[in-house]
């Protein structure tokens, strides 16, 4: 470690990292546009300039992202000279940047906006008109480029070259005619395009799916873990007005996903945006409450009545099959095991085969976010085909957890022999002839708990969105059912 002095404070810095990283790690704010901790510094925006003096030499203003730390270096981030230079750089960056903030999706999380607000001047001095370029250039299915807003920091170019290792973007044209474009105007490909919108320091690259969906300051952010593969990328769940999940964004986790996440996880909003079923209805949306099969088919029932019905089915049939969903948290897995012990049978969980999305960056291709956690608890992974075979010979089964029905195959479950009676805990009640009792459960953004990722790291889930009224935490429901079953067993 190297000792340097920043703003009069002595800090320890990693000599392999640039000066700006040392400042940020010490909590000292240095603005940056082209620098990103996950990418090679290029020093193209010059906004990170600070005053550095070394060994009795007169202080010089240098770009902090292209300067390596040296023993005894003295840095002044707020020196008048450095401020002046940064202000001039900012003025040039804003020369051609349109006044789009009211329209721009980046407003509110835009580095250029923040720094202009803090340090910029009130009005521009330039009398020439701004550059007129394409406002809406589509770069594939995920990203739209607004060439006017681009400040040519080249973060996106470096991301494609360094992180995904598939160079697809470049700065084309010369001088004032430079724009970001793809090679041969081909659309972008790959499963990591969404990160381009995250790393863009301005609103030049935006997500087609999130475009104009919400103002970012209206989004309540909660830390969570991605559900789409066993990597367990750290994410932030962003909820608009406490009602709808609007986006998933990667959150820095040095041990798992760094700053990135794949598009499969980023756009997996469907399962958490399902609308509720109409009041009193059983199908056609999420089940907020419970339903029980009566003489006229499935009908809504109170949770108490449904728990009673579930006890009748599970307690009276021999050796019911107990299968969890791979989305169960460790805590829920434990509750499921306790319930299985009351029956008494061994519990397993549905483990679908690899999704084929595996790559060498993040996606493991294993669609079970908590495979490792549940396996460590002692639940055995069961392939859907094997599970269906076991179901066909069982008399009753308990299927527990988000998406458990779809993972097993709703159509195949509908074709099970009529003797198999099902008790299901799922977000929605599927129209299955064998389904006798169904309870609504919270989705993974509506519950708290832990998943263990493929590397054995325990990662949290937090409640980003309140579960619909009538949906109890799964652990509570399972514990109540286990209690009912054990008392029933004691009586008989």
């Amino acid at each position: 470690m190297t000792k340097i002095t920043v703003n009069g404070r002595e800090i320890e810095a990693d000599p392999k990292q640039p000066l700006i990283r040392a400042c940020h790690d010490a909590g000292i704010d240095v603005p940056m546009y082209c620098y990103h901790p996950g990418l090679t510094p290029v020093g193209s925006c010059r906004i990170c300039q600070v005053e550095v003096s070394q060994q009795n030499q007169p202080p010089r203003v240098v770009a902090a992202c292209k300067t390596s730390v040296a023993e005894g270096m003295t840095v002044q981030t707020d020196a008048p000279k450095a401020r002046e230079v940064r202000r001039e750089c900012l003025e040039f960056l804003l020369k051609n940047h349109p006044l789009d903030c009211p329209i721009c999706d980046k407003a509110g999380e835009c580095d250029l906006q923040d720094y202009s607000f803090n340090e910029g001047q009130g009005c521009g001095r330039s009398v020439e008109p701004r550059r007129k370029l394409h406002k809406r250039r589509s770069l594939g299915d995920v990203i739209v480029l607004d060439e006017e807003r681009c400040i040519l920091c080249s973060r996106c170019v470096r991301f494609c070259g360094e992180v995904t290792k598939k160079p697809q973007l470049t700065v084309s044209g010369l001088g004032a005619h430079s724009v970001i474009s793809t090679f041969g105007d081909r659309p972008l490909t790959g499963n990591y395009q969404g990160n381009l919108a995250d790393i863009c320091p301005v609103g030049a690259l935006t997500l087609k799916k999130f475009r104009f969906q919400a103002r970012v300051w209206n989004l309540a952010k909660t830390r969570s873990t991605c559900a789409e593969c066993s990597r367990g990328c750290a994410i932030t769940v962003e909820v608009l007005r406490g009602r709808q999940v609007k986006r998933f964004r990667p959150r820095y986790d040095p041990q798992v996903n760094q700053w990135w996440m794949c598009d499969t996880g980023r756009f997996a909003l469907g399962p958490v945006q399902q609308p509720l079923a109409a009041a009193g209805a059983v199908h056609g949306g999420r089940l907020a409450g419970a339903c029980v099969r009566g003489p006229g088919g499935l009908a809504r029932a109170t949770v108490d009545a449904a728990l009673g019905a579930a006890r009748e089915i599970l307690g009276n049939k021999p050796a019911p099959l107990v299968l969890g969903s791979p989305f169960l948290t460790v805590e829920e897995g434990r509750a499921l095991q306790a319930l299985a012990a009351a029956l008494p049978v061994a519990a397993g969980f549905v483990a679908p085969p690899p999704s084929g999305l595996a790559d060498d960056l993040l996606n493991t291709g294993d669609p079970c976010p908590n495979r490792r956690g549940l396996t460590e608890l002692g639940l055995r992974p069961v392939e859907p085909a094997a599970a269906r075979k076991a179901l066909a010979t069982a008399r009753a089964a308990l299927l527990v957890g988000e998406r458990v029905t779809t993972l097993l195959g709703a159509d195949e479950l509908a074709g099970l022999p009529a003797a198999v009676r099902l008790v299901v805990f799922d977000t929605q009640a599927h129209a299955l002839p064998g389904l006798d009792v169904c309870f609504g459960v919270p989705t993974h953004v509506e519950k708290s708990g832990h998943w263990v990722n493929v590397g054995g790291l325990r990662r949290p889930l937090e409640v980003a969105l309140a579960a619909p009224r009538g949906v109890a935490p799964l652990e509570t429901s399972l514990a109540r059912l286990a209690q009912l079953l054990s008392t029933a067993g004691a009586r008989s």
Partner: protein
Amino acid sequence: MGIVQRKDLSLAERLYLPEVVRGLSITFRKMFEKPMTRQYPEEPLPKTEVTRGQPRLVVKDDGNVACVSCGMCEAACPAYAITIDGGETERPIEREPVRFEIDMLRCILCGFCEEACPKDAIFMSDELELADSSRGALVYDLEMLKRPKAALQKRIDYVYRLNQRWRKSSSTS
């Protein structure tokens, strides 16, 4: 604390009658003067450009609403009366509101939205009356809030005059 000494009443005061006559003389004099009161609502209140009535959205001369759903008024609103959802358009200005609701029961007519708007899209109109038989009907949606620019021109001119010290040109396109 002081002690208030109650004065004894004079003879005229004790007689009571002169004061009655004096009071009634005022009453009868006012009877024949022009009344100060107004027959509201038959006779509307005077409205000036300074009147800060309910906020309304400007519809530009090309027929599109000037609002780009940037959310500034929503953020500025101290009563949380405004809810906006944006959407994409094919026009050069890419963004427009698909849902713009002002809960008029919450609105306190403070004019912060007018002040916050970067696009000169929302102005305090001279409309003040607000009555309905349900709360839901008083949550005004986009269609109910739209007003042609000409209807708000007096207020727009006033706001420009008021702000001309620091505001050089119009941003309404």
